């Protein structure tokens, strides 16, 4: 069934139609929350909360990009989670050893389908990106996650965060610059392909 028909049915209370949409969008919603929050369980909570809110507020959807509308819901859920996180003890992203040292390349970040080398590369890349994302102010992080990680265009990002296009353009430029500076400190951890590209760029 086409997405507009599913949305229309869901707006009339058809939970099965809505769950079809959930299955189609759950990865993008979860990954968005994961990159904004940096914690898998918190991201899952935010994603679930976002879908519940989306179902209840589905009648407020008036057309346009459903993905952007959904991502606005998850972004709001992430802001709520971050507010809660400030009131709770912070769980470190990296697991710690018995001595309290952070595990540099944690196994729990690995994709079990990849080869060991690929797993290592992916884990290091993900670790570096997540670390740098978390050093950004939340508003910048949200924009860069939506635009560069999820691939939304400027108008979709603007719709998702309810800010004008100029603000999106500005935040994205500054976020990219800060990320570039941060990622330089992880130069040795980045996969070889990126190092070569970097050398070509310079």
């Amino acid at each position, binding site marked *: 069934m086409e997405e507009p028909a599913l949305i229309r049915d869901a707006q009339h*209370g*058809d*939970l*099965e139609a*809505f*769950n079809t949409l*959930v*299955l189609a969008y*759950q*990865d993008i*919603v*979860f*990954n968005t929350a*994961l*990159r904004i929050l940096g914690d*898998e369980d918190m*991201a*899952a909570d935010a*994603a*679930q909360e976002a*879908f*519940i809110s989306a*179902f*209840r507020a589905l009648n407020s959807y008036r057309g346009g990009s459903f993905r952007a509308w959904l991502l606005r819901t998850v972004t709001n859920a992430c802001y709520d989670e971050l507010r809660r996180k400030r009131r709770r003890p912070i769980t470190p992203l990296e697991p710690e050893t018995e001595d309290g040292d952070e595990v540099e390349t944690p196994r729990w970040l690995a*994709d079990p389908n990849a080869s060991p080398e690929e797993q290592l590369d*992916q884990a290091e*890349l*993900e670790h570096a*990106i997540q670390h740098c994302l978390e050093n950004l102010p939340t508003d910048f992080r949200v924009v*860069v996650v939506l*635009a*560069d*990680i999820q*691939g939304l*265009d*400027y108008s979709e990002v603007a719709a998702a965060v309810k800010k004008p296009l100029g603000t999106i*353009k*500005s935040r*994205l*430029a*500054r976020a*990219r*610059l800060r*990320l*570039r500076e941060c*990622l330089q400190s992880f130069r040795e951890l*980045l996969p070889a392909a*990126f190092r070569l*590209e*970097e050398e070509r*760029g*310079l």
Partner: protein
Amino acid sequence: MTTPSFRDLEQLSASLDGQLSQAEKTRLEARIQLNPALAALLADLRLARTILRQTPKRRFRRNFTLTPTMAGIRPPVPRLVPAFSWASAVAMLLFIFTLGTNLVGRLSFGAAAPMLAAAPMTNESYGFGGGPAATQPPVTDNTQVIPTAEAFIMTVPETTPSGDARLIEPSASTVTKAAPEPVNIWLYIWLGLGAVFIAAALLIRRASIQAFRRKVGRKPNP
């Protein structure tokens, strides 16, 4: 060569996403040719963007599909409700039980009344005069049955006003034999009706919930 400004940064970033007009793009490209700092900044931004786009995608270990409970959907209540709610069912059960018990009790007393009416009564047994005097000859027919009030009045003058009251044991020949206790059939009938009503209510409720679940297409998370 000049240090890139914040405006340059914004334009370079937007150019990566194709957000510049053709005129802006042409002007920027000309400046990049003349200013290596702009070219270096553009390369930095492009690399950051490329790395971010390579961020591994993760899948959570379960789906995020909603159950009717999570979605805040409640099964529709049958139209005959509130008769089918739990509280109503219990109240109905208690009502039927009370009604049945009262009815059975009334029927039981009603069955016992004729026995009392038929019970043998002596003139002494009413306590007039406290029973026969010791001088009086013993009442031979001490089991005289007084079936009616009229008969009772007629026998009163024969009693003496004094003497020990003596309750005369009725003889087996005059006492109407006690009827066997009636079976409380109504109690069982009422309780059975109540049980049938409650079972019907629960069955209807269950059927409506199942129909609702089929309608909303509840899917368990894998």
